[in-house]
């Protein structure tokens, strides 16, 4: 595997603080994803990646704060980590952001639809900052899901596009990964998935970068 010179991987353990996320018996998603993120971070760092985490304790940064952290790096890949309430046990799914089609395609294009002459204004809506990176995120999600299908038996071979709130404002390739499930798998088994998860993500990112898709739209 190539030891990559970039990008920065931003790992986002979902929820935190008063937001427990999915709940199992005496266990909460927020705690499990933090442990998974730490294992995945170690696995990714062993592959030569620089990794930052949106939280490393029981805090709950806002969605915007998490996105802003990723957007602060020039060449970042954002991976939000989740544990599901349902799903086939020990399977993993990868999601990229799905936006609804603009109600008025002309008006919704940056600067489009204006009666005034002149160059279009390239303002980026914070609420839809990910829209320009949807194709790249989808490619990355498919690559990661391909790795998961091999590493976690029974996982689907393709990623899905869903309006995941955590991805909406990230200006770069961004995916959410969710392991099933908090009610059907022991906390130890869920936590143990952190390392294979990190290795699978690392392999997918190498392919993604080699294909020249890093940061591309």
């Amino acid at each position: 595997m190539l030891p990559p010179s970039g990008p920065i991987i931003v790992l986002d353990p979902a929820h935190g603080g008063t937001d427990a996320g999915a709940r199992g018996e005496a266990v909460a998603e927020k705690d499990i994803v933090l442990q998974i993120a730490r294992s995945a971070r170690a696995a990714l760092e062993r592959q030569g990646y620089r990794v930052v985490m949106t939280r490393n304790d029981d805090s709950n940064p806002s969605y915007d704060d998490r996105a802003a952290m990723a957007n602060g790096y020039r060449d970042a890949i954002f991976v939000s980590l989740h544990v599901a309430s349902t799903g086939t046990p020990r399977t993993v799914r990868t999601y990229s952001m799905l936006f609804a089609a603009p109600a008025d395609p002309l008006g919704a294009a940056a600067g489009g639809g204006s009666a005034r002459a002149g160059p279009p204004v390239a303002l980026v809506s914070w609420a839809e900052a990910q829209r320009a990176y949807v194709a790249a995120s989808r490619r990355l999600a498919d690559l990661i899901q391909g790795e998961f299908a091999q590493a976690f038996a029974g996982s689907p071979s393709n990623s899905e596009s869903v309006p995941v709130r955590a991805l909406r404002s990230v200006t770069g390739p961004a995916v959410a990964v969710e392991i099933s499930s908090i009610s059907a798998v022991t906390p130890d088994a869920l936590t143990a998935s952190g390392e294979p998860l990190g290795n699978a993500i690392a392999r997918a990112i190498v392919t993604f970068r080699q294909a020249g898709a890093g940061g591309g739209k």
Partner: protein
Amino acid sequence: MPRGVKIALGLLVVAVIIGLISFRGIQRRVKRLAELQTADEKARHEILAAPITTSSDVTQAAKIYWAAGPDHIAPVEVQLPLSANPVERCRQLLHELTVNPPTPGQRTIPADTTVMGFYILPDGTAIADFSDALSSEMPSGILSEEMAVDSIAQTLESNVPTLRRLKVLIHGQEVDTLAGNVDLTGFFDLNPPAPAVPPTTVAAKSAR
């Protein structure tokens, strides 16, 4: 035993007895309040529930999307009396989706959920306003929330072809997420227009 200690012990015993009596009283009061709340909630549901069927409804096949396993939904064809009025029809479909899953395991949205309002704008935008239960009793998770929203969207899409997109409100308000993951600030596309056939494809086909 010194007299002061005896008095202190006596006071302690009295305090414990008073505490136990108060605790049992509080327990009874909490139980009574919970019962009252349940009755209130039931009464509210009955008031909010509009008549689901009318004499002019026609019984026909409808596709309702329920869970077909732990990680996907699938249509089930059911015979339902459905209104010709699209708004009433949508309310009937969502009521069926909520109240009558074939098995408890096929439920995609919490049982206590009620449709508080349903509107269709002239551009085909459907606005579905659900009670708090849809959000507060929904198990958190991308997959569970996706299955819930998809079951609503695909049930409406399959049975009301004029709808173009869906907005989900909770108790009359736009909310950030359904249960911490799926974004409800935007719209969900319904019945997307068929993609235009590229001219080259047509030419290639006709050239054969």
